[in-house]
């Protein structure tokens, strides 16, 4: 590691760390960005769709040059039961216009590109280095260590992602006795990438040019108690497909990695990957700590950004983390730039970061959706409603020669048949307002 001390060290070059580095370097801050992957990006997985336009704050024309896959114009959300599906098909033609609402990305290439932008802006970017520990003196974080080597700086920014070992080791959580994450605050993500001839993919998903499709589903065909959602995203000539499993729904004997097999076995999904070749499999966690489980966001000489801070929003129908990662990185960088004016890097100054988070959409989103787990962890959402909904829809649309009934009556009958009492149904109906 370099001899001269930088002003800021960033651990982790995912979207959070690289965005922080770009903003700092653009403001002439001497910053070192360190990642354990070589090349950078090779440790990272997402679905993934990068939603929103936060990157424009640091790379105004990113939508021209970023190596994204496709522009999302079509979104499907639905309920899968044993072999049936009820799916809402959203087609927003205007999403094709800049700024795009969302673009699909494959992280190995995307993260590498973003870290190159950090280097271009003037950051020192080091790949293939795992930071083993933080140097803490009198309660102040003053640097990082790898083996016997030390590197010191005014501020260390933790951008290490969801499996935040440095945060855990150094007890940077609100609850200092916390030694590990709890099952209920983390989900497992399991992902496969399939190769499909570009022309076949575009035909299969009815995509014009570089349009893309995003799909998110409640999976209702998994036996036992396992609660899982599924997703697929179209790339240029590959398809990303995966599941998100609530770790606290796993019992002894279950295997989280099997959920994706049930998802792919569903006739609706099976047809998508017919003839496609599996080219990668991987897994990464997803935080769902909620506002009460968040760590401290700052302390003396440090701030935390992105997944390591718990900034992933998921309501069962979408997962967003990259946008929060980028935005929180920008806010942490701005906090440093302000702190530099008074050369005060203690928590009394860095608390401005939390203020910025509160004023941004980040903490507002988490506050507004603080009760979303009432829906996303509701067993009936996965185990009962997909069947009831699909059963009702099927009954309504299947011509039997009998006298027709109103849709709502048929659906309600199907829900009743599924064994859910009226009271639970009303309660769950009310809970859906938290989505």
């Amino acid at each position, binding site marked *: 590691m370099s001899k001269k001390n930088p002003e800021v060290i960033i651990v982790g070059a995912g979207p959070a760390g690289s965005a922080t580095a770009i903003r700092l370097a653009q403001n002439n801050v001497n910053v070192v960005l360190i990642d*354990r992957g070589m090349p950078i*990006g090779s*440790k990272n997985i997402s679905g993934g769709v990068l939603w929103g336009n936060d990157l424009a704050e640091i790379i105004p024309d990113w939508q021209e040059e970023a190596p994204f896959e496709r522009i999302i114009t079509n979104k499907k959300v639905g309920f899968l039961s044993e072999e049936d599906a009820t799916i809402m098909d959203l087609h927003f033609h205007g999403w094709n216009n800049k700024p795009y609402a969302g673009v699909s990305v494959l992280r190995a290439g995307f993260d590498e590109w973003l870290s190159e932008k950090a280097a271009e802006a003037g950051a020192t970017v080091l790949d293939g280095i795992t930071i083993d520990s933080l140097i803490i003196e009198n309660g102040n974080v003053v640097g990082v260590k790898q083996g016997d080597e030390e590197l010191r700086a005014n501020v260390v920014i933790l951008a290490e992602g969801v499996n935040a070992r440095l945060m855990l080791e150094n007890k940077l959580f609100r609850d200092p006795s916390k030694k590990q994450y709890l*099952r209920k605050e983390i989900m*497992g993500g399991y992902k496969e990438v399939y190769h499909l001839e570009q022309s076949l993919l575009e035909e299969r998903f009815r995509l014009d040019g570089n349009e893309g499709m995003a799909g998110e589903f409640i999976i209702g065909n998994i*036996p036992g108690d396992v609660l899982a959602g599924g997703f697929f995203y179209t790339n240029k000539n590959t398809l990303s497909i995966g599941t998100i499993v609530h770790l606290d729904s796993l019992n002894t004997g279950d*295997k*989280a990695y099997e959920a994706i097999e049930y998802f792919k076995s569903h006739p609706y999904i099976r047809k998508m990957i017919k003839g496609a070749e599996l080219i*990668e499999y991987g897994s*990464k966690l997803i935080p769902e700590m909620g506002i009460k489980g968040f760590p401290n966001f700052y302390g003396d000489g440090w701030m935390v950004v992105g997944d390591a801070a718990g900034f992933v929003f998921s309501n069962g129908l979408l997962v967003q983390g990259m946008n929060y990662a980028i935005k929180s990185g920008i806010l942490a960088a701005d906090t440093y730039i302000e702190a530099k004016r008074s050369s005060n890097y203690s928590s009394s100054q860095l608390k401005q970061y939390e203020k910025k988070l509160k004023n941004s959409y980040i903490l507002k989103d988490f506050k507004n959706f603080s009760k979303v787990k009432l829906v996303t962890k509701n067993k009936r959402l996965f185990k009962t409603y997909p069947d009831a909904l699909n059963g009702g829809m099927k009954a309504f649309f299947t011509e039997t020669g009998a006298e027709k009934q109103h849709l709502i009556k048929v659906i309600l009958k199907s829900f009743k048949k599924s064994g859910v009492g009226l009271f639970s149904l009303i309660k769950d109906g009310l809970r859906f307002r938290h989505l």
Partner: protein
Amino acid sequence: MGKKIKIDIKNKIGVTSWKTDAHERAHITIKEDICAKCPHQLCIAGCPTECFKFYDDKMTFQYEDCVECGACDIMCDQGSIEWSNPRGTYGVTYSRG
């Protein structure tokens, strides 16, 4: 519910790449004596690549197939797992992500 699906995960991970470090540098270790008394073996349930296997009345762990997700460290509440990131450049290497 339909029938149970079984898959050979070891076959599936053939498409994923690793740079494997030496045995003595294994980034995760377990304490067999703690595992022997474990009431749930939930590490098996959470691991995406089946690094944990209960075999011959003993919990075995294979670090080579680990994708460094961290799930086992969350599933295990018995204090058996010693978890750290692999050395820089080692471990799983995704080319798509």
